[in-house]
C-alpha cells in the first residue's frame, strides 16, 4: 500500500507546484504566443521575497501569509516591467522573444547570486505547517498539502476571473481572436499587460510554496521551468483544464518513475512520454479549435 500511495501523494504535491508555475506560462503563451523563459526566475523571485519578508516579519507563523500577496505583487511587477521594456517590442517574433527572455533569465540568476550569494538561504516554515496528516497509511506532510491547497486556490481564483469578470471575458476574446477582439473595442495591449502581470504574479506565489519545501536558491527557477513547459505543451493552449490535468499527471507519473527507478530516469521517462503523447495529440490535450492552418 505504501509503495502505491507515497508517490501518488508526493507526486500530487509536486504536480501542484508545476500547476502554479504552468498556469502563468499557459496564460501568456496561449494569449500572446510569448514564451517567457524567465518565468522560472519569477518563481525564484517569489522564493526570495518569502526569505526577505521573513527578515522583516520575524514571526514565522505570520511571515508566510504576508509573503504570499507581497510575492504576487513583486513577481507581477517584474513581469510587467519585462513586458513593457522588452516583450512588447517584439510581438510577432515568438522565437526571438524566447531567446531574449533566456537572456533575461541569465541576468536575473546572476543578480540573485550577487545579491543573496550563490548558496541558498533557508526559509523557516510556520509552526502550523509542521507535522503530517496520515492519508491511506502515508504521513502526508502539511507543507505538501499547503502547496496543493495554494495551487487549487490560485486555479479557482483564476478560473473565476476568466469566467465571471468582464476582464476575464476580454482575455478570452483576445485568446480566441485577437483582431476581432480589437475591432470590438477591447484594448488588447492593456489586456496583454494585465495578463502578464497576473501570470508572473502566480509564479511568485509558486515561489513562496517552493521556498517552504527547498529554501531559496539562485538556480531554483531552472529546476522547474522545463517541467512546467512540458506541462504546457502536453496540456494544450488556451484552456485551463488541459494544464491542470497535465500538471498533476506529470507530477504523479514522475513520482512513480522516481520511486521505481531513480530521479534521473524519471526525467528521461517523463520526457519520452510527453514526446510520445504529442504523437497522439500534437496540439496537446485540449486546444481552442480554429479553422486556421497553423
Amino acid at each position, binding site marked *: 500500500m505504501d509503495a502505491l500511495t507515497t508517490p501518488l501523494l508526493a507526486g500530487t504535491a509536486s504536480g501542484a507546484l508545476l500547476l502554479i508555475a504552468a498556469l502563468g506560462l499557459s496564460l501568456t503563451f496561449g494569449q500572446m504566443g510569448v514564451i517567457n523563459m524567465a518565468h522560472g526566475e519569477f518563481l525564484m523571485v517569489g522564493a526570495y521575497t518569502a526569505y526577505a519578508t521573513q527578515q522583516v516579519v520575524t514571526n514565522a507563523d505570520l511571515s508566510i501569509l504576508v509573503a504570499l500577496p507581497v510575492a504576487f505583487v513583486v513577481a507581477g511587477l517584474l513581469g510587467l516591467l519585462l513586458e513593457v521594456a522588452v516583450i512588447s517590442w517584439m510581438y510577432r517574433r515568438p522565437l526571438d522573444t524566447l531567446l531574449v527572455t533566456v537572456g533575461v533569465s*541569465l541576468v536575473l540568476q546572476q543578480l540573485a547570486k*550577487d545579491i543573496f550569494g550563490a548558496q541558498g538561504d533557508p526559509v523557516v516554515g510556520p509552526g502550523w505547517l509542521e507535522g503530517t496528516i496520515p492519508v491511506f497509511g502515508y504521513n502526508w506532510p502539511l507543507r505538501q498539502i499547503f502547496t496543493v491547497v495554494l495551487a487549487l486556490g490560485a486555479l479557482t481564483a483564476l478560473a473565476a476571473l476568466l469566467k465571471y469578470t468582464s476582464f476575464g471575458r476580454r482575455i478570452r476574446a483576445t485568446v480566441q481572436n485577437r483582431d476581432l477582439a480589437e475591432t470590438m473595442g477591447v484594448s488588447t495591449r492593456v489586456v496583454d499587460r494585465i495578463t502578464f502581470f497576473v501570470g508572473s504574479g502566480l509564479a511568485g506565489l509558486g515561489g513562496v510554496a517552493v521556498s517552504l519545501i527547498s529554501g531559496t536558491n539562485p538556480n531554483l527557477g531552472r529546476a522547474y521551468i522545463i517541467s512546467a*513547459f512540458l506541462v504546457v505543451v502536453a496540456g494544450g493552449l488556451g484552456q485551463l483544464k488541459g494544464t491542470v490535468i497535465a500538471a498533476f499527471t506529470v507530477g504523479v507519473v514522475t513520482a512513480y518513475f522516481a520511486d521505481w527507478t531513480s530521479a*534521473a*530516469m524519471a526525467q528521461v521517462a517523463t520526457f519520452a512520454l510527453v514526446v510520445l503523447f*504529442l504523437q497522439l495529440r500534437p496540439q496537446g490535450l485540449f486546444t481552442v479549435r480554429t479553422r486556421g492552418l497553423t
Partner: protein
Amino acid sequence: MSPKTLSLLRTFAPLLGIAALAVVMLVVAPAVLSPFRLNSLGKYTCWAIAAVGIGLAWGRGGMLVLGQGVFFGLGGYSMAMHLKLEAAGPDGVPDFMLLYGDGTMPAFWEPFRSGPFTIFAILALPAIAATVLGWAIFKRRVKGAYFAILTQAMAVVFATLLVATIQETGGFNGLNQFTQFFGYNLYDPVNKQMVYSITVVLLIVCLLIVWQLYRSRFGELLVATRDAEERVRFLGHDPANIKLVAFVVAAMMASVGGAMFAPIAGIISPSDVDATASIFLIAGVALGGRALFLGPALGALTVGYGRTSLSEAFPNQWTYFLGAMFIVVILLLPRGVGDLPRLVRSALDRRTSA
C-alpha cells in the same frame, strides 16, 4: 566589371570568405599565438563547427534548436570514451571506474576501443538520435516554440542522466585526462597543433557542405519552409522531410565539434553539454547572424573568445554580458552583427533618395 563577372563573384564570394578564414586560422594563428592561446582558439573552433549546423537549422530552417549540446555531447563523449580506453591500454579499464565502481566496464564501452568504430559512432549516434526525435516531432507538425522547448528539455534530461551515471560516464566530473589521440601523444605540442589543424579543416569542410546545401534546391526549399511552411506543403513537398534533413545535418556537425572538443579541452563534462551550454552555442549564432553564411562560425569564435577574456577579467560579470548580449542583439539586430553593413547601406540609400 561586367554583370556576368559580378554575379560570378557573388556566387563564389563565400568561397573567398572560407579561403580567408583558412589562411588566418591555419597559417597566421599558429605563427602568432602561444600554444595555450592556440588551444583556446581550437575550443572556439569546435563551438564554431556546431554553430555552422545551428545556422543551417535555425537561420535557414527556422528551427530554434535549444538542445544542440546533446549532439555536441554525443560526439564528445564518444571520442572521450575512445581516448579514455586508449589511455587505459589494451584490456585496461578507465581509471574512474576503479574509483567509483568495482572496475567492471559497461558493455557499451567495449566497441569504443576501436578507432574506426568511434569515428563511425560520432557520425551515426547523433544522426540516429536526431532522426528519431525529428521524425516524431516534424511528422506530427509540432513546430515553433514547442520544438524549441522539446529540444531544451532533451538537453536537461541528457545532462541529468550523465550526472546520475557516475560509474558509467564519470558523472559530474565527466571524462578527462586523455594522453593519446589515435596513437599520437597529446602532451607533445606538435601533436596538439595537429589536433587544432584537424579541427580547423573540419570547420572548413562543414562550411563547404552548407555552402553547397544553400546553393542547392534543398537550400531553396529549406528557406521556403522557414518562411511559408504551408505553401511548401501545397506545392507538393513534405516540409517534415526538409526540416528533418537540416536537423540531422546540424546534429552531426554539433557532434563533430564535440568530438574534437574532448581532446582539445582535455575534458568533457555535463556542464559542456547541458541546457546552458546549448544556449551558449546559440549565442554565437545570434550574434554573428543566423542566416548569413559565415555569421554563425565567426559569431561562435567571437563569443568563445569573449567568454575566455571576459571571465578572466570579470569572473562574475560574464553572465551579465551574455544575458545582455542576447537582449540587445535579438531586440535590435535580429539578423546579427553581420547584418550591420546592409542596415547602414539601406540607411544611406534612404538618405540619398530623400
